[in-house]
């Protein structure tokens, strides 16, 4: 890191008392509302006075009631469930494959020499670029979705795992040698923990990419799922359905990210002791 961008631990910032800090959080929370509320108001006014036809801009109340309807009829939960299943299956398959390949390339230079160039080749074409070819090869069934999502998760996880393992400082390994660690101890006590932050980074990217790929593949080739709801709503000019589905897509993305952040806090807790 350059000397210019090292963030000093908040010198000069006044250290608020506990109560004050709580107050600060409250202010923060309160201040986060005016902007979205203003947007909502403009949206409401624009829809109310029909600046745009309701097919193109449905009023917020309509989106809300559509949302409730979709939940009540089970349409939304059903499609959501299908999408979630796809993303988790694809993420699990691609993630495990990515971890395996990353570890293999990270630990064995020979394996890396053989596999890395091909891996780069596959990674170079963005996931959505694979879609037409995969459609030809495996059809537009469930396999297509799982494969594409796996690929999207696979690449960042494999890459970060490999780089993370490679970046483990030789000094750590030397210390481990001095302590006469066995090979297994070296891996489990030194190499893997040291690589964990970057591996975890890869996992987070992998999940984001998987979610991105899911929406793309469902938009292009699907007859159920959140992405399909969006396409379907758009074809029927039911923008209320589209917007409701988009909100859910955002909420799930948010939730997935939060869950991983929470796990990270637990998993990498030891790291905060460093500074």
């Amino acid at each position: 890191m350059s000397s210019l961008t090292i963030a000093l631990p908040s010198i000069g910032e006044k250290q608020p008392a506990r109560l004050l800090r709580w107050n600060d959080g409250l202010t923060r929370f309160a201040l986060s509302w005016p902007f979205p509320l203003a947007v909502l108001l403009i949206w409401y006014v624009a829809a109310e006075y029909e600046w745009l036809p309701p097919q193109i801009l449905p009023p917020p109340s309509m989106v809300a009631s559509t949302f409730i309807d979709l939940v009540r009829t089970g349409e939304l939960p059903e499609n959501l469930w299908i999408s979630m299943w796809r993303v988790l299956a694809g993420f699990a398959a691609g993630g495990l494959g990515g971890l395996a390949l990353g570890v293999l390339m990270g630990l064995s230079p020979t394996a890396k020499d053989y596999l890395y160039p091909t891996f780069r080749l596959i990674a170079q074409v963005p996931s959505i670029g694979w879609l037409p070819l995969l459609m030809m090869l495996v059809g537009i069934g469930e396999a297509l979705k799982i494969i594409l999502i796996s690929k999207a998760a696979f690449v960042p996880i494999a890459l970060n795992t490999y780089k993370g393992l490679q970046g483990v400082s030789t000094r750590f390994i030397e210390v481990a040698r001095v302590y006469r660690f066995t090979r297994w101890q070296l891996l489990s006590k030194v190499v893997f923990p040291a690589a964990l932050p970057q591996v975890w980074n890869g996992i987070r990217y992998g999940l984001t990419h998987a979610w991105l790929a899911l929406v793309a593949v469902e938009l292009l080739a699907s007859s159920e799922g959140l992405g399909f709801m969006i396409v379907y709503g758009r074809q029927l000019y039911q923008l209320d359905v589209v917007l409701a589905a988009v909100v859910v897509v955002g909420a799930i993305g948010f939730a997935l990210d939060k869950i991983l952040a929470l796990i990270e806090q637990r998993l990498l807790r030891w790291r905060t002791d460093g500074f």
Partner: protein
Amino acid sequence: MKSIRETDLRGFVLPVAFLVLWYVVTALQLVNTKLIVPPGAVLDSAWKVVTSGQLLGGLQASLTRDIAGFAAGSAAGILLGLLLGISRWAERLIGPTFHTLKQISLFAWLPLLSTWLGTGEAAKILFVALSAFYPVALSTFEGVRGVTRAQVEVARVLGFNRWQLVSRLILPAASPQIATGLHLALLYAWLATIGAEYLLGSSAQGIGNVVIRGKATFHVELIIVGMLLIGLVGMVLNRLASLVESRVLHWRGPVH
């Protein structure tokens, strides 16, 4: 050096094995050759579509879109990132909304954009811009946040005005992060360009359209050539970005 040469060759083992397998399998008619076309046919039609200009025309159209969207999106991203980074109030007012909206998976915007703007050039470029916007805004914000109080105080002592503060201190100090964001945005913009072409507009020019048309007309060769081209462009963009990055940030010296 012998060892480097050896390593280079080992990287070819897998692709070559794959090519041989592909050739053998199609030559012996072990698979449906309509679906899995022989490598020779791919090469043949690659040559044909490249020389006919179909692919290159598409490539040009796609790159124009890509660059227009990238430029617009990253300019907006730097501005918003700067605003959020400098102003506490802006960060408190807009920040939460921004961080919430960024969770919406990129492609989910596409149907909305196409309803509002149609499936023409405007919708595509806006989508590409949106995809470039988020990484740039986020990394600019982080870069600006990394400027230390001490640095700002020095600038105050030197009597910098607001503009000087931004142009001489904040932007240069945040430039490594901004560069990272731009780099990421370049890759996302290319992905979005292809995605927009897949999902919107079937008659327009574009490399994505060529691929989709290849799929619709069952020309697997066309799809493969298109894919390779998409990958190649992504790779070139990536290399270029790395090159520019290391040049522009030269003053920082080696990173690690």
